[in-house]
């Protein structure tokens, strides 16, 4: 009997729904113990969801950013940490798919991701520069055919469970902090020495601990394009869209719980409108706004991908920043509304209407790339950006 054939069958949404079921069953334990959601990620691998973004000619399924965002939402409705791991993996994979197609090594590596369902981690944050991923202190050293890198990576999410880590650094020892490259190191090519724990309010299963990373690999594993282009052309949009997909999933589940609460109340007292019903109407409005915003971003990215100038334009960066700000702020208002509707049943843990984990997970949204940093960046761009005055633009 060949189980794997059965497991990866059905539509992407069907496959993600099976992952979500596994994620949901373990979500409380993952949250309580701040442990990696290994069951859910195991299910992603069994469903072959880690390679869906890879082009068909390399063995993948050529899934679009929009399709992947939908899966982030489906899994996010069950367990936000699992969904965020899935999103972060696909954000890194988008860099490979968009910028690694011209390199033999990176093409071969994508085939290996398909066959082995490798999980990709990311090391962009560094001690001494804070969260500004467009700057590095550490520099990669190339000697002969080998490259070496040591980085004080204050955050590497699920580092210990990653099969490969994509890591940023200065391009060479004399390079400016913004002159960066990204390199793919395989698990047997690096060591990790833990420096920071991950005991947080929410998103406890992403295990975003700190490490001293030391790696040595073939120099062909350095991405052929400057990281500045990778950041602008694939990471920016994919991060904000896929994160927003996860957050939308958290919000949808919160609203579902609130709606179930109002319905139950309505059934108990036929003929009267339960007190939470007006708030439910309000929160349904907020959820629709959030959805429209994310859908517009998906459409805008799909269009910009056809045109490199548009992708690296100020207008596009402003639009993507705005999507991230809006969805990360709206999610908190939505969950707070849901909490008002469910009352003490939402505030308590262990009820069908509990919203504590949703609220805690959602609070990470404004912080992962701080909204203040993003607003600062947008306000700078608005000094030169000319507003698009069209509605459909």
């Amino acid at each position: 009997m060949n189980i794997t054939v059965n497991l990866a069958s059905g539509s992407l949404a069907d496959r993600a729904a099976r992952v979500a079921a596994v994620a949901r069953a373990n979500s409380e334990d993952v949250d309580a113990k701040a442990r990696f959601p290994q069951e859910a990620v195991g299910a992603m691998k069994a469903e072959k969801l880690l390679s869906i973004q890879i082009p068909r000619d390399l063995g993948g399924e050529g899934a679009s950013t929009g399709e992947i965002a939908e899966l982030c939402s489906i899994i996010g409705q069950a367990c936000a940490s699992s969904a965020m791991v899935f999103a972060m993996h696909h954000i890194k994979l988008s860099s490979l798919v968009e910028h690694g197609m011209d390199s033999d090594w990176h093409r071969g590596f994508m085939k290996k991701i398909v066959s082995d369902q490798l999980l990709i981690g990311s090391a962009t944050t560094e001690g001494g520069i804070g969260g500004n991923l467009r700057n590095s202190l550490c520099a990669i050293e190339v000697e002969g055919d080998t490259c070496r890198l040591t980085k004080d990576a204050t955050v590497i999410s699920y580092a210990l469970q990653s099969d490969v880590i994509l890591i940023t650094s200065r391009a060479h020892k004399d390079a400016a902090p913004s002159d960066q490259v990204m390199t793919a190191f395989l698990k047997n090519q690096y060591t990790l020495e833990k420096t920071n724990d991950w005991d947080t309010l929410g998103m406890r299963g992403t295990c975003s601990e700190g490490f001293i990373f030391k790696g040595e690999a073939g120099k062909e594993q350095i991405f052929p394009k400057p990281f500045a282009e990778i950041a602008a052309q694939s990471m920016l949009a994919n991060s904000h869209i896929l994160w927003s997909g996860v957050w939308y999933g958290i919000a949808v589940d919160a609203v579902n719980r609130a709606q179930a609460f109002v319905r139950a109340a309505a059934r108990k007292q036929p003929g009267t409108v339960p007190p939470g019903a007006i708030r439910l109407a309000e929160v349904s409005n907020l959820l629709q706004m959030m959805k429209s915003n994310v859908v517009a971003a998906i459409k805008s990215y799909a269009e910009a991908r056809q045109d490199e100038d548009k992708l690296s334009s100020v207008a596009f960066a402003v639009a993507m920043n705005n999507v991230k700000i809006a969805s990360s702020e709206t999610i908190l208002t939505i969950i707070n509304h849901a909490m008002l509707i469910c009352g003490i049943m939402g505030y308590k843990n262990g009820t069908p209407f509990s919203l504590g984990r949703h609220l805690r997970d959602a609070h990470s949204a404004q912080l992962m790339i701080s909204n203040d940093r993003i607003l600062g960046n947008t306000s700078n761009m608005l000094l030169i950006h000319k507003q698009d005055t069209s509605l459909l633009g």
Partner: protein
Amino acid sequence: MVCANPELTSVVNQTKTDKGRMGMNNTIRELIKKHAGLPVNADELADSADLYAAGLSSFASVQLMLALEENFDIEFPDNLLNRKSFQSIEAIERTVNSIVQDRKVA
């Protein structure tokens, strides 16, 4: 020709090439010195050198664009506000020129 005195260099260059073009090139270099916050001297950059690789940050690039707009009395239309338009000194010259040309035609 290598010349230690930058003022002299520009005089020599102006006699050799089109005065207007060199004027713009020098002005751009001066604005880069003032606003781009590069760790290297703008005079040492080749016209084709990648300014981002030389250390131009996104914040400084906007400051540079503002200074260019002010200095040349132009406004960059949104379709030119991308990385490529400001990638190098010669790219900036092209970008500024294309706006100035459009204005002449209009």
